[in-house]
């Protein structure tokens, strides 16, 4: 006799949408960290380049997803490749950092800058991107749910 339990749908965090937001939050946090390492003059390594590459791919996916919606679904790319749930959230978060006009151009420019940082670390370029990913980290993690305890100080 095997016995298992079933869960209400609001308690499936590990396999549900909140987990995707945590994933985006960590991409933001790790990218912001890699950019701050560039700003601090630390020597970048394979781990930094891997993080920057992942963030670059995410921004390009967001831009592709916008193109797909704006084209009425007529682009050649398969929408499944965008990971729409996560992309919609990332898009909403990153869009606030760019003018709405030519949003995809700005996203692709940021992606190109991330690509350039993987080849040649540049403090000026890193400085233009760090706030975007720092904000993404904060918003995505906050949307994923409370960390279970509040840390505060009494004055």
């Amino acid at each position, binding site marked *: 006799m095997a016995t*298992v339990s079933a869960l209400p749908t609001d308690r499936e965090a590990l396999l549900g949408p*909140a987990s995707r937001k945590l994933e985006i939050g960590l991409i933001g946090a790790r990218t912001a960290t890699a950019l701050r390492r560039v*700003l601090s003059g630390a020597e970048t390594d394979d781990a930094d380049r891997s993080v920057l590459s992942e963030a670059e791919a995410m921004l390009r996916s967001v831009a592709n997803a916008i193109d797909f919606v704006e084209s009425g679904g007529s682009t050649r790319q398969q929408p499944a490749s965008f990971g729409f749930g996560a992309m919609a959230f990332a898009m909403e978060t990153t869009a606030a950092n760019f003018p709405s006009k030519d949003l995809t151009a700005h996203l692709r420019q940021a992606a190109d800058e991330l690509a350039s940082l993987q080849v040649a670390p540049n403090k000026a370029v890193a400085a233009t991107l760090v706030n975007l990913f720092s904000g993404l980290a904060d918003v995505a993690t906050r949307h994923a749910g409370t960390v279970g305890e509040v840390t505060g100080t009494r004055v």
Partner: protein
Amino acid sequence: MDALAEELRRALLQRSSTLASRISHLRGSLGDERSPLADVLDLFGFFPKALDIVVEIEWNRAPDALSRVQILRPFLRHVLDVSDFVDDWLSHAGTASAPVYLVDAVGRACLSLGLDERRVVIGEGRADEFRTVVGDIETAVFDLLGSHRPPIPTRLQKLP
């Protein structure tokens, strides 16, 4: 910000340690039994070790306290989610919502009705708010740890 980063690290390592103890207890009660549940618990037992290693590496790589806070917060949320999953799905000894005496009673009732080939599902709440989630548990648990995660031992990989 430095104090917040230190506090998040303390909370994270404490919860990781608590989770390790919980999994060890659950696995220990199964003895040397080889079963899907024992295999899954062995896989989950590797998570706190991997998490501790990743936290140490990420902490040392981060150039400032803000970076540490932004990385540790999602880790803390994740360790809570993994802990909840263990309690909800792998606690064969019972939970607060499905205590062991209730599990045993339902099991005995099913046996007495000749339903020993059936699987009992005990759930709380409304009958229509449950759904099956299909996903790779190894991916869900370990992928968030990123590229600094130590490799999962071969004997624990891709369980049936």
